[in-house]
């Protein structure tokens, strides 16, 4: 037998596993979303595409377009994600830049400290803030002592003084806190790969530091920035637990909360599955984009 084909047998168990528990599992979402329900509102999946019933998907689509009942949630989700992503970029870029080019003898320590949050459970990191932002917590006291709460109130960003009492700003900042490490590390790797000689060449050719940054370093780090932004946007788009922990109020619900409420809370699992189909369809472009970068990087290593 062809030696190259025999390796396919090695891949077989893993591929069968992923076939059932990843591909078929996703197909279950489609089948339930395009299926029906029995008299007890339990979903009856339609596995055969010929039997698909688009009723729930149509209902789900109608609810997320302007005028629909979930339209406000969609707008809010886009707003929260947009602000959180911009903040991640503004915080993450200088940090990744410093760590990759200027940390000097601190570099090893800085890298370890930047990696550490990856490996602390996300839920624990959010939980830490619920300790601090409780009305008598040290975080609330500090923000109050610095008059940040009154500043935010006067700007209309904070309603009252309870940071955990259904504040959009808390959810956004928590998302940034939760996901910015996932932006910094790929960007760090991408900045780290820029050849020092290219920057020296720019300098030797007379570029002052600002223009060598804007015209050499920034364009060269663009793939890293995009990959990092996609990497934080994907989990943020499916996040529901940050909102529940940091606010819990329906006034700050995100799209992930809508799906979670339909699937885990209410009886309308078919509608929840349809919502999941919509979310996946929107995110697919970003997922494939990131997958391409990932595979290109692996290819580079191989070459």
């Amino acid at each position, binding site marked *: 037998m062809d030696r190259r084909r025999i390796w396919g047998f090695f891949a077989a168990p893993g591929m069968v596993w992923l076939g059932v528990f990843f591909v078929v599992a996703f197909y279950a*979402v489609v089948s339930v979303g395009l299926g029906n329900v029995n008299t007890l509102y339990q979903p009856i999946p339609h596995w055969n595409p010929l039997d698909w019933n688009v009723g729930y998907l149509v209902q789900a689509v109608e609810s997320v377009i302007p005028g629909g009942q979930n339209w406000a949630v969609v707008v809010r989700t886009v707003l929260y994600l947009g602000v959180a992503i911009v903040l991640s970029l503004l915080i993450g870029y200088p940090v990744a830049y410093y760590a990759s080019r200027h940390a000097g003898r601190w570099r090893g320590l800085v890298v370890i400290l930047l990696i550490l949050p990856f*490996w602390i*459970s996300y839920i624990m990191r959010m*939980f*830490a803030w*619920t300790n601090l932002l409780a009305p008598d917590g040290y975080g609330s006291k500090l923000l109050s002592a610095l008059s940040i709460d009154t500043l935010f109130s006067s700007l209309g960003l904070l309603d009252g003084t309870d940071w955990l009492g259904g504040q959009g700003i808390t959810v956004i900042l928590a998302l940034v806190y939760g996901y910015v490490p996932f932006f910094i590390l790929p960007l760090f790797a991408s900045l780290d790969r820029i050849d020092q000689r290219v920057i020296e060449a720019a*300098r030797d050719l007379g570029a002052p530091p600002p223009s060598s940054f804007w015209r050499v370093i920034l364009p060269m780090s663009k793939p890293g920035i995009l990959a990092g932004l996609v990497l934080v946007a*994907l989990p943020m788009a499916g996040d529901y637990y940050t909102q529940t922990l940091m606010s819990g109020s329906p006034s700050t619900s995100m799209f992930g909360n809508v799906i979670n409420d339909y699937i885990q809370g209410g009886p309308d699992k078919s509608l929840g599955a349809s919502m999941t189909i919509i*979310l996946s369809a929107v995110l697919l472009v970003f997922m494939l984009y990131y997958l391409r970068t990932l*595979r290109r990087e692996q290819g580079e290593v191989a070459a």
Partner: protein
Amino acid sequence: MSSASLRNPWGKPRFLAGVTWVYIIWSLLPVLLAIRFAFNDGRSRTTLQGWSTRWFFGDSAFSVFGDPTLQDALTHSLLLAGLAMLIATPLGILLAIGLQRWRGRGSGPSNVIALLPLVTPELVFAVGLFLLFTTALATIGLGTTAQVIGHVTFSMSFVVVIVRGRLITVGPDVEEAAADLGAPPLAVIWRILLPLLAPAIAASLLIVFALSIDDFVVSQYLASGADTTTVPMRIYAQARAAPTPALNALATLMLLITLMALGLAYLVFKFFTRGEKGGSAIEQIASIDSGGGR
């Protein structure tokens, strides 16, 4: 121009250094304080009240080892992580070897499917498994088995990335030499390939363990009741409610276990790759985690 500014035309990047250190403090201080509250002598999780270990062992009703719900969560998390580790690692190793060498029809899509779990939002993935185990695979149903399957499914892709990285580093030369000298194919795999992969295998085991123990979304969707509650689920359920530092103590224990697993992964990786040139092991291991929220 002084010689210092010639070497570094940007001057001392004080602003960048400031931003970085403020960020690092912001990212870690809340967690350190949460750990500190675990050792509070009083009941508060928001104010410092002396030192004690009563929330770990002392308190007979509310401490981690006194309150059965907290203790069960810890046991269940460790059980899931142990099983996920033992199943995902061998599957992932075989898959990585297969994908790396298999060139035939179907190898392209297989490569995409093997990496897709890394970029799929966990909610989508969890909803899929939840619906699968409540419809077509209702015989398995929700519960511990479903949770283990879920953890194996998302962590296998990480094993694939780690092991493929190692396969690329070691290259085919040693194996080809062994085959040329007459070693039968199975002996090549058993006596050449597996020992060369040892650091990646050790790292995979411990990283799957860490990923599983930190997981929240999949565990929650596939849980069937109180006896399938994990530590992150318990923290999530009680974070805004139950008012004792025992929850902090539980979170602290879990963090300690995760960091010990990763520290061990790092040491084992370093031990096996000693004398090899190449990137720093810790950066390699750390840069793999791109899952988000796990």
